[in-house]
């Protein structure tokens, strides 16, 4: 290796102990620099731009200034784990760093200040100079909602709240509680000039709404919004909402309930070369309860940026999917069960891929026995199994043209009474919320020319018994698979998302009290 300060996360974590200095030692009973020095890692996470990991941040408490103030060091690492910047600042004792995003020119950090009860957005330029700082208050109830919101996003390497809007700035989408209302708030933060505005829905229909960021165009922030009539309503409707960040107004809000079908979107993406958007999701018959009934299949709509539908394509479980997968009309696939769609990927040559994972309800012998013996239904008589991965491909007319099942070992997700009573849709949401699926993340080129779908598995074979990290790689022409066995000399080994085409492998060596991080390219 070239002479350099060899990088790596082991070095970073050592930095938690000795952030600035070489360890300067001294004998027994004597003090040394490293014995006196202390720094604590408060938060760490990925810096994300356009759904790609571009770097990492570490927020250290590097000193105590007075009773109310700490000094912090915000350490920024690039995508290759090189330390590129240390930003020192003083702030309240109760500070945490929620998320970071990058737009090629600036880096934004969303801080939560528990003392002032504020969310502070700080935007830095490349020299580590604070460019703009924005602040908004939050109350205790909103805080609870934010925590709940966090649990609904369990994919590694994905931001939950903060997203870049190209070189214009950033947007955060946060839940908000206002009196009895539980709605959402969209905050726009400019990185070009000191400008910030907030969008809060004002119509009655959005008193009980839950919003999720789906993507952006050069003028629109696209949200998927689930709305209910009241907090405890068992029936919800799903909407696509477009907020124009130039005019600062809602541009469209459509629920895509037409004569025959209801669309429940799971992904929205701009269509390259046009001003239009593509929406994909499950569809239901009109009149169905999307929280309770089975979906009929998957639909893809092309819409304008004013929300007008241009094209519709439906793929039914019973008809279209059954040609490629052994599917019944309820969407249940033999041995696999129902599919949860984790990811929608559109390639530059207009191929559309859906990454799904199976889940099914099966009888639980243990649950039945426990219910009979204890006369309690707490354990449930059924259990939910997580099954195989499925990759599906759609042609230019959005009709399914290929599907492949990737076997993995079934694992039990839950056997509480949750599994007995809930519908297919609610079960899937619950499984996603609790991180029960084996799907980990998708990494690849920004334009999806190449991508790798990653998931974990547990293998029991004569050669190897233990956890594995698996990838299904698409190189623009064909799919190949790769596997990393997570059993090594290390006491613990884990895999995290990293820059395009890479993963970050963490190895903990208990005996040496050493934690190593390294980036590895996927095979």
């Amino acid at each position: 290796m070239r002479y350099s300060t060899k990088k790596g996360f082991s070095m970073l974590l050592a930095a938690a102990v000795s952030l600035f200095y070489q360890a300067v030692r001294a004998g027994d009973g004597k003090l040394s620099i490293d014995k006196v020095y202390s720094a604590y890692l408060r938060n760490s996470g990925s810096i994300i731009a356009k759904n790609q990991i571009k770097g990492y941040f570490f927020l250290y408490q590097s000193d105590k200034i007075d009773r109310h103030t700490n000094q912090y060091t915000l350490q920024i690492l690039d995508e290759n784990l090189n330390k590129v910047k240390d930003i020192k600042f003083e702030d309240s004792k109760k500070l945490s760093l929620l998320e970071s995003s990058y737009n090629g020119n600036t880096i934004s950090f969303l801080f939560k200040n528990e003392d002032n009860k504020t969310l502070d957005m700080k935007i830095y330029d490349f020299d580590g100079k604070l460019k703009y700082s924005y602040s908004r208050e939050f109350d205790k109830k909103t805080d609870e909602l934010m925590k709940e919101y966090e649990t609904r996003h369990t994919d590694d390497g994905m931001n939950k709240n903060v997203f870049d809007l190209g070189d214009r700035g950033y947007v955060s989408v946060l839940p908000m509680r206002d009196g009895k209302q539980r709605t959402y708030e969209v905050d726009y933060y400019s990185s070009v000039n000191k400008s910030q505005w907030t969008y809060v829905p004002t119509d009655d229909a959005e008193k009980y709404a839950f919003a999720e960021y789906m993507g952006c165009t050069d003028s629109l922030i696209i949200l998927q919004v689930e709305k209910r009539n009241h907090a405890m309503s068992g029936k919800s409707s799903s909407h696509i909402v477009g907020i124009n960040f130039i005019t600062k107004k809602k541009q469209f809000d459509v629920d895509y309930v037409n004569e025959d079908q209801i669309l429940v979107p799971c992904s929205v993406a701009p269509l390259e070369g046009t001003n239009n958007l593509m929406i994909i999701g499950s569809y239901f018959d009109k009149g169905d309860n999307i929280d309770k009934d089975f979906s009929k299949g998957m639909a893809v709509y092309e819409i304008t940026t004013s929300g007008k539908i241009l094209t519709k394509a439906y793929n039914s479980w019973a008809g279209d999917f059954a040609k490629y997968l052994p599917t019944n009309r309820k969407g249940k696939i033999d041995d696999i069960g129902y599919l949860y769609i984790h990811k929608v990927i559109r390639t530059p040559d207009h191929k559309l891929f859906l990454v799904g994972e199976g889940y099914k309800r099966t009888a639980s012998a243990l649950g039945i026995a426990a219910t009979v013996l204890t006369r309690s239904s707490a354990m449930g008589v059924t259990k939910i199994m997580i099954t195989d991965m499925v990759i599906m491909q759609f042609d230019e007319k959005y009709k399914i043209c290929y599907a492949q099942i990737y076997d993995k070992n079934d694992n039990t997700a839950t056997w509480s009474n949750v599994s007995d009573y809930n519908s297919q849709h609610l079960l899937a949401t619950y499984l996603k919320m609790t991180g029960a699926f084996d799907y980990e993340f998708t990494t690849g080129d920004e334009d999806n020319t190449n991508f790798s779908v990653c998931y974990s598995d547990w293998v029991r074979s004569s050669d190897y018994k233990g956890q594995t990290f698996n990838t299904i790689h698409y190189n623009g022409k064909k799919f190949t698979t790769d596997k990393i066995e997570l059993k090594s000399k290390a006491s613990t080994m884990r895999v995290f998302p990293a820059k395009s085409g890479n993963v970050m492998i963490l190895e903990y060596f208990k005996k040496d009290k050493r934690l190593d991080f390294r980036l590895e390219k996927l095979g």
Partner: protein
Amino acid sequence: MERLLAPALSFLFPGPSYVRRLTFSLLFFAGCSLVARSQTRDFFPAPQDTVLLSKLCTNYQQHYKEELNQLPSTNKKDFQEIYGDRWKNIKEKFDKREIYTDADAQKYLDALAGEVVRANPGLAATPFHCYFSRSYIPNASYIGEGIILFNMGLFDRLANESEAAFILCHEISHYILHHQENSMNKYVTTINSEEVQSRLRKIKGSEYRKNEQLESLVKGLTFDSRRHSRDHEAQADSMAVVLMRPTRYDPAGALTTLALLDGVDKDGFDLESDLQQVFNAKDYPFKKKWLKQDNGLLGGHARLQEQETSDSLKTHPSCPLRIKLLTPMVQAAGRAGMGGNAAGGGGNAAAAVAGPVVDAAKFAALKERFKYEVVEYAYASDDYAESLFLSMELLQARPADGYLVANIGRVMNGIYRAQKAHRLSKVVDMPSPGYPANYNSLLQFIQNLYLEDIASLGYYFLEPYHPQLDRLALFKTAYEESARNVKEQ
């Protein structure tokens, strides 16, 4: 440990500096007369004598143990620890087979050093041993236990034996002036001194701004340590000229060496265009996207802010300053060849060639050989990116060189194996703002390749040389493996 001691030990690269490349033109002109010969004579790496390495290591270990018994009783544990670290570094040089065991080369190096010892009888009382290190890094160092390492990456850049002698004399001076031991002693006594301990106690008792106070303390200690290191370098330069004076070597070699080293980090080699040329096969054309790099802050190629460059904080004065300090001494020695020019930093190294003292032909032959040995050692020590870089650089001046072609194929196969086994980071560095631009371009190129690209690039690079180079086992093996890799994809 290595970082703490480095300023007192190394000739060229104090502390965490980065290795820079010689300009291609310099390499080219230095090597052009050898091109014709290298194309007709294939390079085969010298076999390493593992028995000798083991024996030497055992002997030095014994010496180290005896040394431990003589350490001061005050702060003994700290001394043992710091000497232990030094020994660990020495042992690694033997364990990793960095020490070159070729008898012919060793004989020559002994003769070079022997001339200095013969002319300076006082040195007989403090025996030392010089070895060639197989490292590509243009450096030399005194590593402790009387061992001086002369890196091949520095030797192959020198113009004459007088320059080599200056480097040896500089390291001998570090040894006989006990610079390393003095630094270690100063370090241990300072950190255990009542003054520092009292300040540490006070800081520990503070509730606020504890780390700010520590930072101030460390800054003072570092400044002091660097000042001493700088003094050591100046002393070693002066003492080297004193040692050279009674020898047959030309003391002006000191100035030309420093002038050479001053330009050692100039980077004139256009690796990107070379990659496009070397890996552009008819059946697997080069893709521009393989060179794509994000120059933003987070892409591994950020421009780091200039470090503190105030001379008071530098570990060593720069080479021009060292030349300036040394010139009067060299002139006083009576045989100054180019002092004035060198002091300006623009001297022509070749102009100062002194007459051969030991064996000019052997000097030239070793220089030639070492250009290849460093490539081989980089590969053998699992530094695939460096081995590829050195091969590409050398191949520019020696196209179709059998060993270099085979090694490029071998490295591509190694990268393929490593990536497949998810071990690429163990053999290839990640791009870093701290690396020279060319080396970073190569690292980014490797990062941008998919497995099928690596397999194909290796195969299609080797393919035109088959079957002409099949006479080389290294080539044949690499070619066959690359064909299997392509088939596998």
